[in-house]
C-alpha cells in the first residue's frame, strides 16, 4: 500500500508542470521538507513557512524522501500547507526498515513506522528583511504505528510531542555576494531516533532540550549547499544514540520542483555503529 502511494507521489511530482513561476517569495526561501515533514533542510526544521505563499495566499507541497545507510533504510512521505507565510500544517509518514537487525535480534517485524502531525507558526521577524531573524514555534506530534519493538528496546511511550523554537536568517550579500542562510532550532523532546524507537526510556524518561543547526550557502539562484547538525537525546540502555549530521545539495528547478541530495552520518542507530549513507528527497510545490 505504502509503496503504491510512494509511486503515485513520485509520478505526481514528475508530471507536475509549472505554469506561473513568478510568485511572491524568493526562490528557495520556502526551504525543502525535512525528514519529519516541516519546512527546513533535510533533518532540521527552519523558521520558514513551507511554499511560496505570502499574506492572504495559500501554498501546498508534497514530498517523498529516502535515506539509505549501511544497514538501514528510512522512507518518508507527506504533505504540508502554508497560509499567509504565517501558519504551516504538515503530515508525514515514516517507515524505517531494520534490515539485518530483524534476524540478528529475532524481532517480530522488520519495520518501524510512525505518523507525524506538525504545526508551525511564525511569531516575529522576517527571513530577509529587517534586523530580526524570522522566529517560529512548532509542534511535531508523533505516533508509532506498532509499539512492540520500541517497547522491547526499553522505550516508555508510543507517542510524543516535540516542541521547537526556530530562528532563521538569510543574508543576501553573504560571502562576496553569495547569500548565507543560517538556522538555529531548539527542540524539547523525548523521542528516541526521532520517535521511531518510541519516546522516553530506561535511562532517561524526561524531556530534553536539544540544539539543531543549519547553515547553507546559495551558490546560484537554483543551487543551495548546506550543512546540518542535529543533537539527539540518548534515552535507551539497549543502544546508544548519536547526534545526526549531513551535507546537502538542494536544487530548485523553479518554485514548483526541488530535489535534495545529501550525505548523512547518523552515527550509532539501534546498536549498529557508524550508519552513513545518502539521502534523497523530492518536493513539488503547488
Amino acid at each position, binding site marked *: 500500500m505504502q509503496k503504491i502511494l510512494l509511486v503515485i507521489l513520485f509520478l505526481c511530482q514528475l508530471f507536475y508542470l509549472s505554469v506561473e513561476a*513568478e*510568485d*511572491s*517569495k*524568493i*526562490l528557495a526561501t520556502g526551504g525543502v521538507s525535512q525528514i519529519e515533514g516541516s519546512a527546513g533542510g533535510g533533518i532540521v526544521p527552519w523558521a520558514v513557512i513551507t511554499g511560496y505563499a*505570502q*499574506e*492572504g*495566499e495559500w501554498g501546498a507541497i508534497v514530498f517523498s524522501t529516502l535515506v539509505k545507510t549501511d544497514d538501514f533504510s528510512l522512507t518518508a512521505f507527506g504533505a504540508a500547507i502554508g497560509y499567509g507565510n504565517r501558519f504551516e500544517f504538515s503530515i508525514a509518514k515514516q517507515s524505517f526498515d531494520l534490515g539485518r537487525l530483524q534476524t540478528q535480534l529475532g524481532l517480530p517485524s522488520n519495520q518501524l513506522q510512525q505518523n507525524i502531525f506538525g504545526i508551525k507558526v511564525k511569531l516575529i521577524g522576517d527571513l*530577509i*528583511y529587517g534586523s530580526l531573524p524570522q522566529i517560529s514555534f512548532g509542534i511535531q506530534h508523533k505516533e508509532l504505528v506498532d509499539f512492540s519493538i520500541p517497547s522491547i528496546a526499553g522505550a516508555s511511550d508510543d507517542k510524543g510531542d516535540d516542541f521547537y523554537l526556530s530562528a532563521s536568517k538569510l*543574508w*543576501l*550579500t*553573504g*560571502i*562576496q*555576494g*553569495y*547569500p*548565507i542562510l*543560517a538556522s538555529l532550532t531548539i527542540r524539547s523532546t523525548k523521542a528516541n531516533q526521532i520517535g521511531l524507537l518510541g519516546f522516553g526510556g530506561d535511562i532517561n524518561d524526561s524531556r530534553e532540550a536539544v*540544539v539543531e*543547526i543549519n*547553515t547553507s*550557502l*546559495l551558490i*546560484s*539562484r537554483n543551487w543551495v549547499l548546506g*550543512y546540518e*547538525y542535529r*543533537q539527539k537525546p540518548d534515552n535507551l540502555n539497549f543502544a546508544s544514540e548519536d*547526534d545526526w*549530521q549531513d551535507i546537502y545539495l538542494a536544487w530548485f528547478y523553479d518554485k514548483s520542483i526541488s530535489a535534495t541530495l545529501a550525505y548523512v552520518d547518523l552515527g550509532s542507530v539501534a546498536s549498529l555503529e557508524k550508519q552513513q549513507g545518502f539521502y534523497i528527497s523530492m518536493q513539488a510545490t503547488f
Partner: protein
Amino acid sequence: MNTNLLFLLLILIIAGCQSSSTKVSETQNVNNSLYLQLGGQETVNIAIISMVKRLHNDERLSELFNDVNDIELIQNFNDFICQLTGGGCEYQGATMEDIHTGLSISKAEFDRFVSMFIFSMQDANIAFPAQNKLLDKLAGLRDEVIEL
C-alpha cells in the same frame, strides 16, 4: 557535538554578518562600484526594460503602472539604480516614500516585484553575486515602499 564543525559554522555566520554590516561603507569610487559589477549602463538598462515589460504584463502589478509614462519610468529607474549602486548619476525623481504613499503596497506585492526583478536581472545576464548585492540595497528600501 563535533566542535570543529560547530566552529566552522560560527565562522560562516560571522563572515555573513560582517559582509552585510559593512555594505554601508561601500566605496564611492565609481571604478569599483556595484554599478560596474552589474555591467554598467547598458546591462542595467536591459534589466530595467525587461522589468518594465514584465510589470505591464503582470496580472497583479500592472494596474500600478497603468498611468505611468514608460520613457520617464525607464529613465528614472536607470538613474535611481545608478545612484543607489555608486554609478555616479544623480536621480532627479521623487523620493521612494513620496512615490508609494497612498498606494498601500503590500508585502506580497513588494516580494513579487523583487521576484520579477530577479528574472529581469537574469534576462540581462547580471552575475549572481552582483544581483544579490543590488537586491540587498533594494531590500533596505522596503520600509519606504510598503504599507504607506
